[in-house]
């Protein structure tokens, strides 16, 4: 059997030490009536055969089309050194760093990741990651509820709908009031959001750039949030956060992000990572692991998991969250990716992505009947309205080798003709040109 080293002779020696006759004797405590009624798993396969099978399965996925899909999940270039470094088994075969002296590599890396996230989102505290951008938002919401002891949550409809449906599920049993404020032609409706904040409001949740790609400044909104002693939560897109006005500058109390776009392959939805940062006043409400700097007996700098009194293994049902394992290796990928590109590389990545998106918007809106839906400044993603149903257009263009974007009608009633289009630095002007020509021919 693979990966099981004991020879028959060794097995016998071990059984003798234990004082039983057979391996079966070790399972004697499992009552007969609890034994498996069936166990019809297939027979094992050789490594070669499994690899062949998996290659065949992988070949049944289409990954060679030109894609303008985004919707919160972006295909940026990942430097090769990310994979090389992450393949160090000292990183990827370690557990959570419970023994700090034997885990300084992981712990310093978490500390550096926290520093990177705190700088990128411009808030002083960050944790070591949660599962994804959606669970980060849910955890942020619970932080606000605990801190304010209030139950009303105001959510912008321009927040990624994938996260809105997750928030709905998670709050079902919690007796919270979730109020969704409609978007205004793709703009986050700051006026309506401001108008309904009151003394019962625990949090206001907005996104920048919002789901339609629109770039906002929430400074005034957050001022009102604070006048009512509520918590301002902002969901961000971390690649663009290297150039955009920051959650910190706008006055957000908690900023979260889906970290996928920095260093994670798309991988059909995961593993990704939820980035969480917050102000000092909220740090004790933060879920999850945090690495802190300290010293050993000789005054040498080292790192440990800290503020553990918030966590489930100490506080059990009174913990700030139930999270235990997080997305540590993904966080390390994000950190290494950021370090390889550095300040200039990240700015260029953001700049190229924004530039390509604007080129695409120009080319596409020069087609009769195609109109820009996203009003005002946008980043690397924007929506257009087509003269026909977007689902149909996607279907037709996919046949021609192009996935033109995401159909807004999937989540927004009345926007069945809306198409959400994303570009990254990987998108070429040539690809955009072909897309525009094929679309023109289709309409």
């Amino acid at each position: 059997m693979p990966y099981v080293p004991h020879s028959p002779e060794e097995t016998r020696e071990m059984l003798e030490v234990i004082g039983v006759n057979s391996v079966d004797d070790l399972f004697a405590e499992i009552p007969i009536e609890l034994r498996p009624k069936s166990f019809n798993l297939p027979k094992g396969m050789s490594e070669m055969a499994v690899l062949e099978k998996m290659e065949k399965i992988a070949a049944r996925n289409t990954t060679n089309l030109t894609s303008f899909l985004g919707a919160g999940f972006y295909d940026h270039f990942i430097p090769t050194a990310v994979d090389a470094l992450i393949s160090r088994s000292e990183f990827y075969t370690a557990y959570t760093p419970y023994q700090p002296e034997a885990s300084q590599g992981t712990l310093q890396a978490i500390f550096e990741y926290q520093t990177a996230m705190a700088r990128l989102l411009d808030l002083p505290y960050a944790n070591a990651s949660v599962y994804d951008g959606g669970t980060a938002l849910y955890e942020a919401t619970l932080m606000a509820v605990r801190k304010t002891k209030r139950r009303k949550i105001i959510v912008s409809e321009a927040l990624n709908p994938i996260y809105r449906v997750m928030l709905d599920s998670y709050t079902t049993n919690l007796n919270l009031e979730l109020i969704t404020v409609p978007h205004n032609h793709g703009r986050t409706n700051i006026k309506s959001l401001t108008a309904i904040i009151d003394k019962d409001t625990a949090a206001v949740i907005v996104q920048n750039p919002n789901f339609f790609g629109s770039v906002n400044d929430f400074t005034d909104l957050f001022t009102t949030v604070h006048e009512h002693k509520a918590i301002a939560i902002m969901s961000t897109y971390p690649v663009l956060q290297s150039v955009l006005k920051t959650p910190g500058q706008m006055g957000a109390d908690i900023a979260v992000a889906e970290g996928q776009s920095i260093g994670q392959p798309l991988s059909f939805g995961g593993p990704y990572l939820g980035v969480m940062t917050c102000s000092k006043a909220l740090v004790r409400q933060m879920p999850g692991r945090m690495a802190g700097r300290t010293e050993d007996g000789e005054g040498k700098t080292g790192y440990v998991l800290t503020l553990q009194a918030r966590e489930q293994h100490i506080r059990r049902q009174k913990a700030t969250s139930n999270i235990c394992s997080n997305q540590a290796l993904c966080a390390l990928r994000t950190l290494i990716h950021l370090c390889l590109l550095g300040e200039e590389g990240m700015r260029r990545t953001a700049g190229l992505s924004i530039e390509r998106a604007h080129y695409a918007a120009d080319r596409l809106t020069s087609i009769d009947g195609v109109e820009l839906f996203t009003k005002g400044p946008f980043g690397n993603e924007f929506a257009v309205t087509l003269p026909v149903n977007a689902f149909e257009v996607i279907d037709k263009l996919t046949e021609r080798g192009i996935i033109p974007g995401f159909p807004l009608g999937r989540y927004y009633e009345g926007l069945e003709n809306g198409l959400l289009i994303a570009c990254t630095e990987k998108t070429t002007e040539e690809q955009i040109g072909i897309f525009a020509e094929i679309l023109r021919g289709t309409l």
Partner: protein
Amino acid sequence: MKTVFKKSVPGREGVWPEKPKSKIEDFIPADMLRESSGMPSLSELDVVRHFTKLSMKNFGVDSNFYPLGSCTMKYNPKFTEQVAALPGFARLHPVISQLKGAGRHCQGALEVVFETERMLSELCGMADFTMHPMAGAHGELTGVMLIAAYHRDKGNKKTKIICPDSAHGTNPASAAIAGYDVVSVESHDGIITPEALAEVLDDEVAAVMMTCPNTLGLFETHLPEIVKMIHEKDALLYYDGANMNAIMGKMRVGDAGFDVVHLNLHKTLATPHGGGGPGSGPVGVCEKLTPFLPISRVKKLEDGQYYLDYDAPKSIGYVAPFYGNFGVYLKAYAYMLRLGREGLTRATENAVLSANYMRKRLEDDYEIPYNRICMHEFVASAVKQAKNGVRALDVAKALLDKGHHAPTIYFPQIVKECMMFEPTETESKETLDQFLDDMIEIARLSDSDPDFIKNAPTTLSVSRLDETKAARDMVITDDIE
């Protein structure tokens, strides 16, 4: 070692893309932009050397025996990494599956989801599985949400969830975060007795969360009676599958009467833990809970095509943006294919064999509070050593100096000076013997030279770290003084 930010040299070129033709200000007003984001400027070699050096300050399964109890730190075969990296998987955008007719572009991925769910259902004897939960605790939360949905649908008014005092901290935390009051049940001689359960089990109990074998490594021998008691109250029985490595092929939790189960694929099914994650915590359910599973569900048509089904009016909704940690359970799927029925059973048998061998060889030198046949792990206690001032923590640190990772310590909380050992099936007898010899030597040194043990570790990049200082100073980034 300096942090990577302190190594930054302004102007040094990294892995940069080309320069954009225009300025960002041409598209977005300057007052909506920031100045610097504080990322470092480093060469590729700077970065490679920094992280390679960092990795050398870590223990991992490939370099060290890692008998961390409750964590199943088995060897992770290399070929599964190659599977997850196949471009047909790694480059697949998740929303491709939501486009019209686009199921045709991800048949392979949908097959993986579907077949993994089928295999796990057979492994556990459950009616169905969802792959969406992204770690064990996330599976627990999903499971408790399923339980709540079931009771709501039946019109049951249930407000409590029972967890044994030996339960992992995530169990009560998951129950609480889903809106339940948590009630503890005490274990007797290491296990739950029907009498103890009867004291807390009333009509308001929605579910009992059990781990079997429990966190002491002991089989819950009263299980048949307990199952009956719980179901008589129309409460559900939850199985924390972190310890699944103990029972593969020996017991199926569904056959045994459990209604909901989560697995930790990053333990039992050999996906690497990555220094804290990512994991995968799929949840299995019995027939009556299937209508509540998270959306979407992968279904298979008669012609063999797979599609995504969103039509589930009783579903708890979305617990993940898409289909969970696909790249992680892909590895677990490949691992199950490789081992098959017999290989998985053998894994369990050898895990249990090794644990009992270790327990037996330590019994003269360490207190073993429940010294009877254990499953895949067991707990010992450092109470004997504590008489000389040597605590479980000290034994753990002395093991690090010997090149072994430490056991889990101070968990479960009901055992004093607790040390929980889980060798797993992949470690050879030589490795176990070396470790055991070192454990016995540490016990002897605790008598003859306790200070030596209390000063460990001395061979690593740092000696014992001041955790109180860390919590007081709260320096968790380079920018906090």
